[in-house]
């Protein structure tokens, strides 16, 4: 493989205010510079630069051969990416919105996840599937699903989701470099959040959770779009006298049991926070796993604060569906028996 020269290429870049969209766009550019096997395609990712402008300028810079529009055929796009990867390319495909990845479900579950295993490693499918996901952006139905739990159950896939601008860059670079297929869930609601940083940035590896805020009383375990909410809740809880730790999973698969359990054994209390519906959501796996590992340290059952168990509501009702600081504070209180 061509060595990754991006970090040198852009090292001269200065600190700037960067949005998550820009960070992802830059990660794609740097990945394409670093490795000419990287190919981008999907619906409207070419000339338009994607409906969220994430791929802006890539087809102009790298040509239609390496960044191009496809017909509207999500299963076909995914399948073509698999075939390209089998031949040695490094495809990065975009599913325009969470719910519009569903037509590709069979290709993801039956082929993308299983090709390496099926062929005893003779073939591999290092495809990165970019999925803008989650709500909070006032979009109509089918444009705000949190679909990560449909994927975490399937062995063979890596499930990665950044919650910060630097992770958006760093995790995506790692995902594209990696040897396994990655579903890269991009929190739409954080697309326009900014950070002061100089790209490229190095971040902790995929598979490592990060303690975003240390704390001694209770641990909030979260990821993606819910991280800012968890941090806000931690601040609010501080005023109420609770010292709250916040762990950002960053990747759901691999799951960093050690970092999570270290935090929970310290606090003895934990609340999982995510935007997706709770029932059968990834929070269940976190709660079950943490409880198996840390049972003797737990003062209270692991609580879950999640989206409600209803179809994602219309924009005017989003705020009733989504987790709130208030609901997180209630859950924290519950772990102290205060309610």
């Amino acid at each position, binding site marked *: 493989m061509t060595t990754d020269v991006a970090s040198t290429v852009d090292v001269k870049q200065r600190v700037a205010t960067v949005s998550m969209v820009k960070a992802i766009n830059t990660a794609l550019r740097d990945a394409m510079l670093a490795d000419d096997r990287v190919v981008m395609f999907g*619906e*409207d990712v*070419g*000339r*338009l*630069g994607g*409906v969220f402008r994430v791929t802006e300028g890539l087809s102009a810079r790298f040509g239609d051969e390496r960044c191009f*529009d*496809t*017909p*509207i*055929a*999500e*299963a*076909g796009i995914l399948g073509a990416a698999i075939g390209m990867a089998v031949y040695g390319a490094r495809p990065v495909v975009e599913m325009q919105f969470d*719910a*519009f990845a*569903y*037509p590709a479900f069979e290709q993801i579950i039956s082929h993308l996840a299983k090709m390496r295993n099926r062929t005893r490693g003779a073939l591999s499918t290092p495809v990165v599937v970019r999925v803008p996901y989650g709500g909070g952006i*006032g*979009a*109509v*139905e*089918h*444009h705000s699903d949190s679909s990560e739990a449909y994927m975490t159950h399937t062995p063979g896939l890596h499930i990665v989701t950044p919650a910060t601008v630097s992770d958006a860059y760093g995790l995506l670079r790692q995902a594209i470099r990696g040897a396994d297929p990655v579903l890269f869930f991009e929190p739409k609601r954080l697309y326009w959040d900014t950070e002061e940083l100089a790209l490229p940035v190095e971040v902790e590896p995929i598979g490592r959770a990060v303690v975003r805020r240390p704390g001694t009383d209770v641990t909030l375990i979260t990821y993606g779009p819910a991280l800012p909410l968890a941090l806000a809740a931690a601040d609010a809880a501080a005023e109420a006298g609770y010292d709250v730790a916040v762990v950002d999973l960053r990747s759901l698969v691999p799951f960093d049991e050690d970092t999570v359990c270290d935090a929970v054994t310290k606090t003895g209390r934990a609340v999982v926070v995510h935007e997706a519906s709770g*029932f059968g959501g990834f929070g269940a796996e976190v709660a079950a796993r943490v409880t198996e590992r840390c049972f003797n340290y737990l003062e209270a059952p692991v609580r879950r604060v999640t989206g*409600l*168990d*209803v*179809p994602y*509501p*219309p*924009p*005017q*009702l989003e705020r*009733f*569906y989504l987790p709130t600081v208030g609901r997180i504070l209630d859950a924290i209180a519950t772990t102290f028996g205060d309610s």
Partner: protein
Amino acid sequence: MLNLDHLNGSDHMPGSTAATALSVRDDEETILLRGYRAMVIGRRFDQQATNLAKQGYLAVYPSSYGQEACQIGAVSALRATDWLFPTYRDSMAIVTRGVDPAQTLTLLRGDWHCGYDPAATRTAPHCTPLATQASHAVGLAMAARLAGDDTVAVVLCGDGSTSEGDFHEAVNLAAVFAAPVVFLVQNNGYAISVPLAKQTRARSLAAKAPGYGIPGVQIDGNDLPEVYAAMTAAVELARGGGGPTLIEAITYRVGPHTNADDPSRYRDEAEALAWRRKDPIDRLGATLRARGLLDDDLQQAIDADAEEFAARTRRTVIEYPAPTAAEMFAHVYAALPPHLAEQADRYGREGGAA
């Protein structure tokens, strides 16, 4: 024959108004005049919706400006007992069926997903997952036939949607079962930013029809009489047991994909301007005047009705009652499962929208 407690029966379309409703029993002149009137009103409605979106009263609006002949021609060929399966692009067709304009725009207002009663209006909810409503139409049409009804289902979709597997499976199912369905592809040249040439290498989209063993026609989608004639023929063929037809109507998306889109990023404005010269309303207007069926007085009367309809649209959209949190739980299931009942208790109480 099945005894379905199905949804059809009367030939009366609730909410349907003379302003917009056409009937296949009308003579040609009436049809042209009503169609013209419906296009003028439809465009005015569409412009109002675009304004409402720009002013923040709608979350988003995909305009069908320039596609009036397709929108009106399609529904004009239908009986009240026939079903329409529209997309996000087809609000003009929906109001032309007689559906209340504010209810039609509920989805796009960020209010409840579907604001009208699809059963009462025989109009499926706007479908956003591309081509997925096509198989619904096929199943509904098969069920209607089983029930002994002469209902026909019409699928509206775009050129880009024809690339989806769902389109292929639905058309093939309809063909194999000779289901009373008509597929009207509004080929407006673009799928968001992607031109037809990147969507298919085929001479035409109608050329797909022989691959399913059904009739396929390519028509001028900016010519109301042509759309109406093709739709009527296909609908009556389907009604008579002749199976589905694939109609490709050549038209153009004069405006952006939605109010959030900027077409200058991917297409030449000259192209759009050229198409404005093929404007379906101007064209039919000229024909009608040439035939002495339209004069300034009538045009003024029609414009007045259009203004009134647009004003009603604006007023009712703005006044539309906000949904409440309780509604999130009310219709997930016929009866709430325990874990959901708990949540409805805790979170279904909070008031409506801001």
